């Protein structure tokens, strides 16, 4: 869903440009919509990004340790991922009162009379997103524990490499 929204954003901003130049009538609120959307897209997409292993890490050394001494590697993994869980919980603790505050206080973004949008949805998405990320980190811990006991990891999903797919198609 978050991914589809990027496409909508593209159309919206393009439309804004066209309207501004051709009809001299810009859309109001595009700036605000984009601002809200960036945060929303980020937090909805983050857990899945971690799941397919795309969150930045320098895994050359870690990968080698995991191959040579799976025992050491998995314990390191548990520590790494536990840190992820802990931090996400910290952000949720910080963010939970903020979204309730925004919700009950009726906070909004934008300029009164031009374009306004309530503030609580993006605050709420942040909490949800961090929650999903915490769960995903936790699942990685489970994988590491399974690794310690010699069991295969839980099911995995691989990201599609769109560039390679595109090149291969163009060569057909």
């Amino acid at each position, binding site marked *: 869903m978050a*991914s589809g929204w990027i496409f909508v954003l593209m159309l919206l901003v*393009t439309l804004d*440009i066209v309207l501004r130049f051709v009809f001299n009538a810009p859309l109001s609120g595009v700036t605000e919509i984009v601002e809200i959307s*960036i945060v929303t*897209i980020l937090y909805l997409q983050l857990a899945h990004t971690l799941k397919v292993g795309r969150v930045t890490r320098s895994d050359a050394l870690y990968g080698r340790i995991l191959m040579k001494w799976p025992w050491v590697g998995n314990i390191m993994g548990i520590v790494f991922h536990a840190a992820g869980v802990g931090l996400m919980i910290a952000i949720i603790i910080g963010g939970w009162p903020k979204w309730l505050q925004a919700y009950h206080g009726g906070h909004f973004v934008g300029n009164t009379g031009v374009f306004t949008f309530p503030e609580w949805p993006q*605050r709420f998405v*942040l909490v949800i997103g961090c929650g999903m990320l915490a769960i995903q980190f936790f699942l990685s811990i489970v994988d590491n524990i399974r690794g310690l006991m010699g069991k295969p990891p839980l099911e995995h999903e691989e*990201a599609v490499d769109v*560039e390679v797919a595109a090149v291969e198609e163009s060569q057909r």
Partner: protein
Amino acid sequence: MTGFEIGVISIIAMLLLIYVGMHVPVVLALISFVGVWIIKGNIKIAISLLWISAAKTVSDFLFGVIPLFVLMGLLVSAAGMGRDTYDIAQNALRRVRGGLGMATVVANAIFAAITGVSIASATVFTRISVPEMLRYGYNGRFAVGTVAGSSVLGMLIPPSILLIIFALIAEESVGDLFIAGIGPGILLTLAFCGLIAIMAYGFPSLVAQPGALDAHMDQKKMPRGELWRKTYPIVILILVVLGGIYAGLYTPTEAGAAGAFVAFLFAVARRQLTFRKLWDILVETGHITATLLFLIIAASMYSRMLGISGLPTELGKVIGDAQLSLTELLVLYVVILIILGTIIDSVSIMLIAVPLYLVVLAPFNVDLVWFGVVTVIAVEIGLLTPPLGLAVYVIKSTLVQKDISLADIFIGAAPFALTMLFVLILVMIFPEIPLALVDLKRSLN
């Protein structure tokens, strides 16, 4: 412990944790959290620092620039324009010795002008130009080295994600940085072509098997209609994105949207886009965006922590006392970046090093646009150097020819890395290379 000591320890701990393989954003967030907690002795402040960064950092219209340019780049690849740029460049250079290598470089430069990610160029050209060069008897080592070397053009020639991220950290204009990337980008392209010419004439055995060097010269010229059909979409895209920014018609974020839209239209018109494929592209855009923004957020936690620790100010004092000249400072900076580049990815390095160095450089009144270009080139050299050249790993994983080893790619890329260093030194000595066009634009507005 003083804030200063905590700051220093935090940097060492951070590099260590990144090196052993913890997720980079988690490292940055963790170090900042613990650092603030220790300095302030209050966990509530640390928690609220995390939340403020998480909620406020990327909530700005300017950050829309990242997903939109990523989307544009992926759509351009999906429309098959990588292949087109290679065909055009090969057609133009088919009568030149070493022309296939130069064609790879030039095609990368053109492709870079319509996409923003180095890694995209590395993937695309590993599949397109490596087989072509091998077919004509070029050495595998030279072929992959050329692809690795020229893929870094993607980050220097605008639009470029690295330039965008630098602009966001340094609070400079994205448009100015884009324009500053043009001069050095062209210079680097020419330098790479020069390097290939030197290798092809001076040391032909490095480039190809004996007698194979001139084999591609009998290729037929591309018919004019086909050439036109492959060229005009690229020209239009460059005009829409760079032309629009240069003329001040719209903001970089809007340029990204317009560029993505035009690329989308071309992909649809060429019947290269199914719903399934569009969906994959959008998901991929989401992944790249989330990765980058997560890093940026974590880095903003870290720079807030540094601010609280007082490290940058202290560091500024230390450096002021040491009486280092600007040149010495910059040389030190470049050396640090290149060393970090051997272990850590480009974006993370920039997010770690730039905020610190901005404070250090503040008394010297350097032009930050120029500093950004220097940073990007220095960081990109790291993509080509062992043990962890990212571009090299990407090429290895996309390569069909499994008999070419990682070491071969690193060795093949070495002359290109040295050439980059040479260009970097030129850019540092002559700031006009990136800044001439920027000044021109500034004087127009």
